[in-house]
C-alpha cells in the first residue's frame, strides 16, 4: 500500500466509524452510506467464499442486516472493514453449513502437495500469465482462497485476516503457505498441459 492508499483507508475508516455510530442510533441514511461504501468489498469476499453470485448477494444482505442490528457492538478495536468482513465470514460459514457444502474444506489444512513435481523456478514464467494465476486462485481450497483474497484483494495485514477469520495469526500464515504450494502445483500443470491442465 502506498501513502495515498493508507490515507484513503484511514479516511474511509473514520467515516465508517461515524456512520456506525449513527446506525446504532437507528439512522437508515447512515446505513445507506455504509452499504454503498462496503458493498463491493463484502460482495467480492462473499463471492470468494461461496463461489456463487446469488449466495454472495445473500451474504451481502445478511452482513448488512447484522451491521444494522449490531452497530453498537463495534468496539473500535479494529478497522471497520476488518469487522464487517468478519461478519461476512461468519455468515458464510452459516450459509455453507445450511447448504451442506462445508464438508471437504476441513481437511484442507493438512493437504499435502507434491512439490517435487513442480519447482518454483520452473513455474514463474507461468505466473506471468495473469489468467492462469487467477484460475489457480479459484482452484484453491476455500480457506486458502479466503486468505489470498483478503491479502491481495482487500490488502489486509495478516493480524487483520486472523481477526476476520477468527483464527490465530499462525493459521493465517500456514494457510498461505499451503496456498503457495497449491499455486505452484497448479501453475506447473499449466506449463505441462498447456491451456487446460
Amino acid at each position, binding site marked *: *500500500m502506498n501513502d495515498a492508499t493508507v490515507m484513503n483507508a484511514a479516511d474511509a475508516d473514520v467515516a465508517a466509524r461515524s456512520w456506525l455510530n449513527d446506525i446504532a442510533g437507528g439512522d437508515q441514511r447512515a446505513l445507506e452510506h455504509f452499504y454503498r461504501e462496503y458493498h463491493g468489498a463484502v460482495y467480492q469476499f462473499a463471492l470468494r467464499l461461496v463461489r456463487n453470485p446469488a449466495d454472495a*448477494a445473500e451474504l451481502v444482505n445478511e452482513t448488512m442486516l447484522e451491521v444494522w442490528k449490531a452497530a453498537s457492538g463495534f468496539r473500535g478495536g479494529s478497522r471497520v472493514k476488518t469487522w464487517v468482513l468478519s461478519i461476512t465470514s461468519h455468515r458464510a460459514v452459516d450459509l455453507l453449513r445450511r447448504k451442506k457444502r462445508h464438508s471437504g474444506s476441513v481437511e484442507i489444512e493438512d493437504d499435502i502437495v507434491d512439490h517435487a513435481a513442480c519447482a518454483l*523456478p520452473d513455474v514463474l514464467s507461468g505466473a506471468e500469465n*495473469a489468467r492462469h*494465476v487467477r484460475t489457480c486462485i479459484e482452484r484453491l481450497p476455500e480457506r486458502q482462497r479466503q486468505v489470498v483474497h483478503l491479502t491481495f484483494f482487500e490488502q489486509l*495485514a495478516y493480524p487483520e485476516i486472523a481477526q476476520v477469520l477468527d483464527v490465530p495469526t499462525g493459521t493465517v500464515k500456514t494457510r498461505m503457505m499451503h496456498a503457495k504450494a497449491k499455486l505452484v502445483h497448479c501453475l506447473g500443470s499449466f506449463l505441462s498441459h498447456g491451456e487446460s491442465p
Partner: protein
Amino acid sequence: MSQELLPWYVNGTLPPAEAQAVERELAQSEVVRGELRLWQAVARAVEEERATGIADGAELGWLRLARQLRAATPRPRRARWQMTAAAALLAVIGVQSVFLYRSDRAHREEIRQLGAAPAGVRENEWRIQVRFRDGATLAEIESVLAAAEARVIDGPSALGIYELAVSRARFADAQAAARWLSEQPVVAQGTAPP
C-alpha cells in the same frame, strides 16, 4: 522465518521491523526472491481482476435491504396521542353523561336532537371537524390546537374525524377556522359543519 511474511510484504502491510527482516532474507536467498516474484504475480493478477470491475448490485441490494428494514420497523405509533385524546374524550363523555342524566331529569325538553352540535360547544366557540394526518405526533396536534385556541370535544369517528371547539375570539367565523386548520401540515382536512 520471514519468508512466510512475503505475501504481506508484497501488499505493504508489514510493520517496518518485519519488512526489514524480509528484505534481509531477500538479499541472501535466490529461493526467497523467486517466491517474491510469485506473490508479485499473484498481486498483479488480483489487481487486474479488481480493475475489470465488480458486479454492480449495490443499488438493487440496497433497495432490498431498505425494504426489509421498513417492513421490520414498527409503524409510527398513532396510538399514543390517540389514546391520550380518547382518554380526554372519555372524561368529557363521562362528565357529559352525568350532565345529560341530570338534564334529563330536570330539563327533559332540552335533550339535544341526533345530529345537532355535540354538547360542549360553548357560545363563544365554533364547531369544526378535522382529520389529522397519519403519523402526526401528539406534540404536533397539541401545538395546532393551542394555536387555534381549540379543544377536542368528540371523536375520533370510524373515519378518524374529531370534533373541535374553536374560540370565536381567534377566528371571525367557522369557515375561517376550518380553512386555517386545513392549512396546517398535520391536518388532512378541516370543515365547518352546517
